[in-house]
């Protein structure tokens, strides 16, 4: 009887607190960064482990030197891209422009990496260093491309909100901005990894 009665009763479902989702976004990106850190640190570990063990002296077989020019170009575009996204976070009204720059440079970094692979002059089989180089850059580029997508969604969201009041009304500014901050946080982390990668694979070698 009670069940029948409640079925006819108009349900008034109390909405969840509006701060939950932004907080979840904040915590989620930090947790995911932790996971990604453990993923990427595996390559750092492989780098030092193989370099240190190397029982057969084949850390490098033959001339194994990736082009430093492209390496620097990749690093610079990553750093500038991260900075551009930081600017978008600081000044949300510039998200479309700064975010666009960040997106373009992030994508450029991925393209340059692809060019680097095809012009390496050595293959993955040329010893431990070559393996780490190829493996790490592949994993890294996957992350860069993933971030490209993420930045793109932030830019697109900002762009649509800028020209469509209805879209703006759907979700709070707070949530959108939290999403952008999360994106920037993760992208900064990935770029930091790019810096580590550059130091180990290009600068130290």
């Amino acid at each position, binding site marked *: 009887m009670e069940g029948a009665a409640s079925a006819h009763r108009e*349900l008034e*479902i109390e909405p*969840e607190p509006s701060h939950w989702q932004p907080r979840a976004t904040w*915590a989620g990106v930090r947790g995911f960064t932790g*996971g990604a850190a453990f993923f990427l640190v595996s390559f750092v570990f492989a780098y030092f482990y*193989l370099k240190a063990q190397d029982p057969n002296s084949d850390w490098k077989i033959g001339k194994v030197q990736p082009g430093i020019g492209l390496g620097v170009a990749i690093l610079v575009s990553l750093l500038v891209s991260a900075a551009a996204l930081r600017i978008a976070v600081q000044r949300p009204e510039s998200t479309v422009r700064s975010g666009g720059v960040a997106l373009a440079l992030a994508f450029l970094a991925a393209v340059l990496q692809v060019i680097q692979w095809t012009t390496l002059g050595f293959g993955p089989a040329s010893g431990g260093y070559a393996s780490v180089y190829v*493996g790490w850059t592949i994993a890294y580029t996957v992350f860069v491309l993933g971030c490209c997508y993420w930045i793109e969604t932030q830019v697109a969201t900002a762009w649509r909100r800028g020209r469509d009041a209805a879209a703006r009304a759907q979700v709070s500014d707070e949530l*959108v901005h939290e999403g952008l901050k999360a994106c920037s946080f993760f992208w900064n982390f990935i770029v930091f990894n790019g810096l580590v990668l550059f130091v180990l694979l290009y600068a130290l070698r």
Partner: protein
Amino acid sequence: MTALALPARTRQPAWRQLLGFNVLTGIVLAIIGWLIGYWLGGRFVNIPSLQYYTVGTGPGQNDISVFLGYLLGVIGFLAGLGFFNYPIKRMLGHPPSLAEHESAGEGWIRYFTLCTEHKVVAMQYLVGIGVFFFIGGINAMLIRTELLQPNVHVFGANQYLTLVGMHGSMMMGMMTSGVLGPFANWVVPLMIGSRRMAFPRIESFTFWLLMAAGVVLMTTVFFGGFQTGWTGYEPLGDQGTAGFDAYIAFFTLVGISMCLLGLNVVVTIATMRAPGMTWSRLPIFVWACFATGVLMMLAAPMLAAALLLAALDRTVQTAFYIPGNGGSSYLWENLFWVFGHPEVYIVALPGFGIVLELAPVFCRKPLWGYRLAVAGMLGVGLFSFFVWQHHLFVSGMNADLRPFFMLSTELISLPTGFIFVCMMGTMWRGRINYAVPWLFCMAWAFNFLWGGISGVFLSDAPSDVTTHGSFFSMAHFHYTIMGGLIFAVFAAIYYWGPKMTGFKFNERLAKIHFWTLFVFFNTTFAPLFALGFLGMPRRVVTYPANLQGLNDWVSASAYCILGSMCVFLVNLIWSMVIKREPAEDNPWNSKSPEFQLPTPVPDYDYEKLPVFDDDPYPYGVEVAPAAATAGQGA
């Protein structure tokens, strides 16, 4: 931005519901994707600028093809389920939203779709993982069949090793989510008053990815299987046939799924607690899920990375695991066990949580030593990252660190001991109700005790010399995982199952299931300790003739476990399909919030967000010490 309030769609005829984004479309697209990927892989080999990367692709086996097939197959599957609709919308600038297929008006079809309702995903998990648990179990039976005779082979040596690998991978890969998938997704939001998980779409994603992974693993039989067992040691894996690609793809997908599942649980618990639900009021099961989630989130990516290296070795000719070409077999052992040991506790911790969660309900007392239990769970989680090299005591790697790893491994028994003392304290002067869930908890304590005690022999480097890699270690981890996790899962199934499904289990059959499982579990695995001590290595297809008696006993006993599981299946089908009795709202007189809701729990869970103002276990009566024992009678 609420998770709720999608208007119920008008019902469509059944056949019409089959069209659209659901698992059927997913399967079709998966097959198409596989074929495209396989074909593409064949083309890559002939591209001149990629010659450095494809030079070693030998005749008759193109691993690039196989991997691309799996990749595009899984992408196709997810696309068919509709997982890319929302990301594409986001690319077009549409705002974030959370809900999909949530309304009960969509009927049964939502169980076969991307559904963001947490209770639906939990049921998907329960059934999906159950199916793979069954497959893994069948493989175990076949292993025991092969071991009936020392040197007469029912199956070939290839197939035997594939069976061993499939059983191990299926159990370790799929069952890792065996508690967090079904029970955390179902219970945690209700316990903390949040109505949903933090990322409902990711919640669904983890489930479907796991299912895709299970199928991928099974396809290994079409590529010659894999001979490495679930640990996939290199460079044995590197030299495997394409069947090993299935193993890599499987565990990578599992790793992604695990990481995201853990992340989701952790974020939900951390940020979406209803008013008044402070950290010190969290039910102990939620704490267990939190600790497990952290481990999953951080450890699983290591596995994904290790597998990526293996995949690169097999496709683009890197040499991470190939000694003599710059690689090292120890690299895999390190990366794998840095994941692998937390993984063991990922499997054990939720069991701790279930047992301690049920203890107050069935002992009718507050949880004894709540803070100690929390410390135990977090301690186990923390320590588990510092013990991995006890798997490698005789490997010759970092031998000077053996005393440290011996110490850290033995220290991890301290927080595990906290769990025991909390359970023991809760039982003391309780009023213990031996309902089926509690029977399973008691059995958990018994089994896990032996698991822990036998672990001492493995953590002690001198005695590990004999026990390492033998049936002793195999018996040890079956005591902790099967005797621990699986018993706890069954406790959870009998405890929360009626609430989740809306029907009662037949209690008589449930008791038969319990007693047969408990007895036959112990008669199966206790002799394995002896076999290990007598010198039988793991994963062997043949063994000395003098060990046949014990092996036959174990096999016979293992078949009895199958029989016991069949009792469970019969009970399930009987109670669900044949003679369905609706479950009560609160069959156990539990004071946990989820049992205060009607059965079945409505889609919106709580009409008003609950407010918590007491600790989670308000059991027991405040009485003077002298009167406390009154009523214990005679």
